[in-house]
């Protein structure tokens, strides 16, 4: 469903990705692991068109985003492509980015009612059931700043799911969650997967990664050092660098 072809990206002439390739099949759950600053968040942002890149292209559901140095790059086209991609792909941010001027409920129904044109009532009942899923039904009328970190994280997840996307990108979805919640979110994601949702997750929680994913991608300084099933990666890492990284998890 998502194909990344020869992706090159640099920040202020500091190269990050240098010709990266990655294929994410429909229905698969891919976890991106790797040390801090290795480019996990940036890769997710590129997939959603929030970050432009210099070379290569990313194709989501057949919609192609080209690097700005590519011949096929067409500014007018990008607009349409982005719209199509973002309708199908949801994203949960590391810093949540909830809308502070809206209640939790309004955060969730905002996009369904205004983008998808779903009726207020239907959107609200969907939102309530999503809030129940993340155990926050009683916070529906609170404002984001009245919530704890974990509560905000769960609202952000519910908000993304409300758009019924075909693929979801999660940036460290469990970092503010307590162990119980991790279970819950895991269950939610598993549900989604069983409904055919393609999922990409950047995470530092190895156990979470090994539990949920079909594919694990190990990133280091913008390069994919290893790509395989959780079993291969976690219990049979070929790469020394990887082994060192996983040592703590392996203990």
């Amino acid at each position: 469903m998502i194909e990344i072809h020869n992706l090159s990206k640099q920040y202020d002439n500091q190269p990050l990705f240098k010709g990266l390739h990655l294929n994410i099949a429909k229905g698969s759950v891919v976890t991106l692991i790797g040390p801090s600053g290795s480019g996990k968040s940036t890769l997710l942002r590129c997939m959603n068109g929030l970050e432009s890149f210099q070379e290569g292209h990313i194709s989501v559901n057949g919609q192609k985003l080209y690097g700005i140095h590519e011949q096929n790059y067409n500014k007018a086209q990008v607009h349409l492509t982005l719209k199509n991609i973002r309708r199908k792909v949801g994203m949960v941010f590391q810093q949540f980015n909830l809308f502070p001027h809206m209640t939790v409920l309004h955060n969730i129904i905002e996009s369904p009612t205004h983008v998808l044109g779903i009726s207020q009532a239907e959107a609200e009942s969907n939102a309530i059931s999503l809030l129940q899923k993340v155990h926050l039904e009683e916070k529906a009328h609170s404002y984001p700043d009245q919530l704890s970190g974990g509560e905000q994280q769960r609202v952000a997840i519910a908000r993304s799911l409300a758009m019924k996307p075909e693929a979801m990108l999660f940036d460290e979805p469990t970092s503010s969650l307590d162990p119980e919640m991790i279970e819950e979110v895991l269950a939610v994601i598993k549900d989604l997967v069983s409904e055919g949702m393609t999922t990409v997750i950047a995470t530092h929680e190895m156990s979470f990664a090994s539990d949920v994913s079909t594919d694990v991608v190990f990133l280091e300084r913008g390069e994919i050092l290893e790509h395989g099933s959780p079993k291969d990666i976690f219990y049979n890492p070929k790469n020394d660098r990887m082994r060192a990284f996983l040592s703590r998890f392996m203990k």
Partner: protein
Amino acid sequence: MNYKLLFTRSILLLQICLSVLYFSTTNSFAHQNTLEKVKSTGVLIWGFDAEGGAPYVFHDPKHPSKLVGFEVELVAAIARELGVKVQHFQNAWDSILLSLQRGDFDIALNGIEITPDKEPSVLFTRPYYVYAEQIVVRASDNRINRPEDLRGKKVGTLYNTVAKRMLEEMGEITVNIYSGQVEPFKDLSLSRIDAVFVDLPIASYYAKPNPQLRLVGKPAGEGYYGIAVRKEDTALAEELNKIIEKLLRTGELQKIYSRWGLWNTAQEKLFLHEEPLQKYTENLPSVSEKVSPSVTKFLPTLLKGALVTVGISILSMMLAVGLGLILAITRLYGNTWLQRISTAYIEIYRGTPLLIQLYILYYGLPNIGITLSAFAAAILGLGMNYAAYEAEIYRAGIQSIPKGQTEAALSLGMSKRLALKRIILPQALRITIPPMTNDFIALFKDSSLVSVIAMVELTKSYSILASASMNFFKLGIITALLYFGMSYPLSLYARKLEKKLRLYDRNP
């Protein structure tokens, strides 16, 4: 901006008021025989209003402390005949007869028309002047030929004139009041008004040399000015009648009027009225009417002006908000050309004086065939000017919202437009409320500039009333309070709105 003038005056008058406190003497001999009193004291106290009184009585522009005018010369001649000196008594025109009754002065002589409604309160001498008003129209316009034809039309006149009062009495006429003598004729040429109705001399000076305009009909509203004295002063009135007769016969009256360009054949009628137009009555005056002139009666007019100020301010602020938002958005998100255009708009409209912008809109655009009404020009001019300022405020507001908010909205499938409308602007609004309130309050006061294009708003109303009543200081305080009364509720509302929009994790 009559500000300067107004406040120079109001300060002067404040000083005058203070000195009056020191030297004030109340005339307690009001009801003795005035003629005897005048002769014995050798002083004739003359009541008049010098403001807006050209060519009657006015301050000589080169020596503002000196009074000139044909009535000054007339009173001088009268005093000379009486063998006494003249003492000046400045009094608001509106309350001049009340003050006469109260005994503040001996005679009231200041373009006071001899009308039956004044009969119960004062006594008039025979007339000393025949006044008339003239209609001016566009040369190409054949609709108006008589004063009656003015009904249903838009007519320009000068404030505080007989013509204005006549127009208002005629009714069914939209009266545009100007303070400058040039503008009504300019607006007439531009078809903004249908006719100008003013004193014949003014009409002649301005309209005759202009081939686009013409005078129609005979001078209208002919009437008589007389000297008013207290009802019991029949002796004084008779003495004055004799003097007027003498001045007429010797030709001195004609000489005075000629010097002021006021003599015309109509004045011959003065010879016809050897008797006063009004019969003497022997009743003593009723003392009950001695009400001191109160400022409260000006309030309705001031409030009307304030309403216009509020109306103009609100409408132009609405325009400024809308246009400013468009400018801010094109400056932030538009392509290079749109960005340049909106930046240029902002720089030019901020950088040049509002008054030039107003003049170009109102007097410049007609040259390319676009003739705006005063109201439209006022709203457009103020709105387009303030839009430049608002645009910068909105830009600052939008830029203060973290990018993560836009990214979250976009990743939820919203278009840039929708994200701006639903996510960014509502958050930016709170930050922009205080500077917007600032500008709105400043706009209330800047809107007084539109008085240059014949709009009567609060400052203009003040100016008209103050020059008509000489109550500069009192009215000035009331006007300042009215301005405050407009801005303070706005402040309160803004503060409330701000609180409502409060985002929790912000500084206090």
